[in-house]
């Protein structure tokens, strides 16, 4: 490998060790669209989901006692206080699934599936991302699926569900990227900060030739395959086309809108110091949130699903050595305080992410990225011990370009599902109207007030 190419793929350790700031200005300028930031430009809307595993100790620890704009943070929501006016607390929503459990709760998280017919449908993030790709100013990356590696799912259920919340049109789980460094590399296809524009363009042109060739071969193959093989092969075709789109966009010089990310740098407040293996969780999550902020700032994508933790996560930063699932189950003496500490930490990390997004000015030069984004944040179950799917703990952060008036606590009481909320969000993001979504969305939510 040449020196340039070695820089091209920054090492994971260098990244986690703080060298993420190698994202230097010249590179980002070179990638930035030539169109300058236009005063008055309309910022794009973005959909993010933030999942954490195994719910909360008890809804009473979570739910604020007052409604409207004057709610006060509960015990578990205390860390949210500085961002209180950018977040909507939604109480009383139901997650779908099939009985009170983890596996189906995770499968249902973004799909609204009830699995009654043994099937799972496309997730809402994919519906929204597909619709964005049909628009003229589409972002280069269809969507991103991110989250630290969970190697311990197997004892707990079906890994296809537990490790993924995004599902394609045929209900296939979309593998998430578990390495923040890879996710970062992907944003700019490993283009080197030292490479000049012509070098990047030449490289991307050859890459495009490679993808064109395999796309051509794959497309003709696809028509010749038997039914069973073809169903699986569609994953390959879709993936090739997504990567081609991204390569084309970068070859052409950057993100999809008139946004400049020339001011982009790793957001402040990170503690990406190298820690021994086992204590990497916080560093990894910080690295992921930085990548997400960068992806939005440079308008490389507008849809991200993030799985922060899993049942198999070990909360080493808090000194807990057993699986989180173990903490949330059964009558071990000190489980509840540990569980509270963990959820408080999750809310803290979420709040810090919102602060990152709120610190970045959007293309209009006035609002923040967060103001034009909606972040759906919840878990697959509510009470970690009961596994119930009703009375879910839900935060909805951001303003979605003025459509959401954040800072409220809203109670739902008509059996509204996540899927009803997703229909409302999708409608407000330009997705053609749906009469239903998944097995549980029927359009019960008409407004957020």
């Amino acid at each position, binding site marked *: 490998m040449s020196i340039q190419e070695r820089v091209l793929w920054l090492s994971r350790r260098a990244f986690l060790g703080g060298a993420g700031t190698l994202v230097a200005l010249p590179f980002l300028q070179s990638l930035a669209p030539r169109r300058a930031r236009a005063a008055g430009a309309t910022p794009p809307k973005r959909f993010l989901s933030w999942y954490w595993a195994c719910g909360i100790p008890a809804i009473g620890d979570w739910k604020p006692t007052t409604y409207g704009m004057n709610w006060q943070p509960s015990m578990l929501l205390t860390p949210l206080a500085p961002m209180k006016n950018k977040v909507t607390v939604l109480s009383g929503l139901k997650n779908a699934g099939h009985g009170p459990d983890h596996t189906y709760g995770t499968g249902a998280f973004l799909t609204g599936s009830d699995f009654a017919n043994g099937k799972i449908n496309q997730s809402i993030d994919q519906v929204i991302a597909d619709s964005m790709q049909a628009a003229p100013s589409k972002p280069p990356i269809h969507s991103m699926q991110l989250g630290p590696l969970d190697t311990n799912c197997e004892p707990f259920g079906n890994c296809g569900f537990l490790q993924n919340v995004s599902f394609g049109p045929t209900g296939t789980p979309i593998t998430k990227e578990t390495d923040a460094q890879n996710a970062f590399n992907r944003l700019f296809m490993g283009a080197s900060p030292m490479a000049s524009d012509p070098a990047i363009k030449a490289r991307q042109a050859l890459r495009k030739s490679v993808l064109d060739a395999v796309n051509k071969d794959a497309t003709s193959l696809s028509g010749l395959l038997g039914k069973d093989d073809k169903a699986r092969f569609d994953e390959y075709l879709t993936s090739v086309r997504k990567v081609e789109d991204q390569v084309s966009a970068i070859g052409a010089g950057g993100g999809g809108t008139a946004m400049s990310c020339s001011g982009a740098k790793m957001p402040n407040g990170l503690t990406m110091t190298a820690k021994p293996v086992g204590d990497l969780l916080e560093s990894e999550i910080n690295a992921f949130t930085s990548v997400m902020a960068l992806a939005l700032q440079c308008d490389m994508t507008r849809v991200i699903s993030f799985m922060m933790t899993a049942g198999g996560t070990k909360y080493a930063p808090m000194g807990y050595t057993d699986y989180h699932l173990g903490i949330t189950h059964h*009558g071990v003496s000190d489980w509840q305080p540990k569980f509270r500490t963990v959820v408080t930490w999750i809310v803290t990390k979420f709040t810090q992410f919102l602060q990152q997004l709120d610190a970045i000015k959007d293309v209009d030069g006035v609002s923040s990225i967060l103001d034009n984004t909606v972040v759906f944040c919840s878990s697959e179950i509510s009470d970690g011990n009961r596994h119930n799917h009703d009375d879910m703990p839900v935060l909805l952060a951001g303003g979605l370009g003025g459509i959401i008036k954040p800072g409220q606590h809203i109670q739902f009481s008509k059996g509204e599902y996540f899927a009803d909320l997703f229909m409302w969000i999708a409608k407000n993001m330009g997705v053609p109207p749906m009469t239903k979504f998944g097995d549980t969305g029927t359009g019960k939510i008409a407004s957020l007030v």
Partner: protein
Amino acid sequence: MFPIRKLTVAALAVGLGACSGQIGSGGAAGAPPTGDPGSGGTGSIPNGGPYTPGTVPLKRLTKVEYDNTVRDWLGSKLPAFDLPEDGREGGFDTVYSALQVSDIHLIAYQKNAEAIVDELFATDPAGIKKSWCDYTAAGDACATKIVTDFATRAWRRPMDKWGAIGNGLSTYTDLVSATGSLAAQTADDRLKTALQSILISPRFIYRFELADKTGQLDTYSVASRLSYLLWSSAPDEALLSANLLDPMVLEEQFLRMQVSGKGASASYVPKFQRFLTRFPDLWLSLDQLPGLTRDATVFPGFSAELASDMRAETLDYFSRFMGMADNPQYPHHALTEILTASFGMVTPRLADHYCSVDGTAAACGIKSASGEVDLTKAASPRLGLLTQASIMTVTGAETRTAPVRRGRWVLEKLMCQSPPPPPADATAQIQKTQADTRMISQRQRLAEHRVNPSCAACHNLMDPIGLGLENYDAIGRYRTRDESGMAIDAAGALPDGRAFQGAKELSNMLAADSRLGSCMIRQLATNATGRLMDAAGDENLVASLLASAGGKSMTMQDALRAVVLSEAFRRRTAEAP
């Protein structure tokens, strides 16, 4: 649509009462399928019922297979970049339904292909480039030949054997043509682009299997199946040129790929060591040992090195069961003896570990100087696989033993019975704030949660097995008192109610149970075919495999051979016309 596994769906039906979950077949876990399990005779196995070879849709290479394939062929010294970890089904990473492809895979494939081709041009580690004609001077014919040869090897079948789906080669040769779509590029860039495309092509990433109308796979499909099973890598020239439709030839190749040399100098083929590692790693969950942690205050002696030695002991033990036909030092052992054998080999560190509590070397079953395991003495508290530190550790918890995990491991790995996850709201009935600092044994603690009928249905199957293993702590040391200082009562019972006292009795009882053999066949077949053996008729298929392997007396070699020579491996269910 993404199919939901039958097993997990079955789990949902478990509310109160029944606890079913025979892996793949839905048989009741509480009782053996038929006959008397204690007799262990093959006559009690359901036999002769109808089955089909099964359908394995298009399968992509696993991360491990991809890695080995480029390394073995191109001699690449590069680390594999960025490929995500593969999912697992039934414990194995080779099961098709867990092998998705997404854009992050494609990006990783492209990155790897660029690096590998650059390396080939720069250092040519396997001497491939040096045999090429001069493509810069010789024109299209030369470059086309290079591309064709490269693709033939990469795609694991001759260009004229692609049948109805065609070889697609012209798309790739067009890239190198001086008058083609990349005419403006240098000859080097054209060739690099073509070779990268070949490595990203679905023909490389996936294993295309071609079959005739009756479902008979062609020899190249079988070659890849065999090679990825035994070597986790692509077939070599000898395998690709053999006629594997002839069972005699298939068996010859099957043996050639395992052992080289004759008599006492015979040894395992290096690439076959991958099977000898990968299969037990995934079957027995040994791959959890690297990176496994234990609370340092409770187990100060536990270390990554010790965990590695534990895994090595079991891998070595497993490889002894494979055996080599004509090497007297490596006899084939009957598979059921895996639970009762008294031999093995451990490192000095692991020997110390076993003996740190056991006392004398003889009592802890180690010939102290050599590290040779000898469990023939009656005083030895250990026997066979089950009591190896690796197994007792992967089924333990951070600070204590976990009898439920142990019981589940035995049922799932050795009996192929999979108790479903807890019925969700059952846990609500446990006192949430109860301060459980009582000095009571695991037995007393678990007895409490078996009072609840909705828990008891399944825990009655798992807990009594795990409790019978309480004499081994969470890092596999023998003990007579538990974490609470209570004397251990190692009375246990199998799901059918038969009682046993301690691990040695349990191991003997399981070794005599006919389900052990059929479970091992099922695990091998799952790994080999790449599908969960859960289709209609698969119970009959497993029974027929067991019978052709020799039933109770089969060796690991017999079992693997039976799978490889079976219809499930050499055919697929014919598609409806």
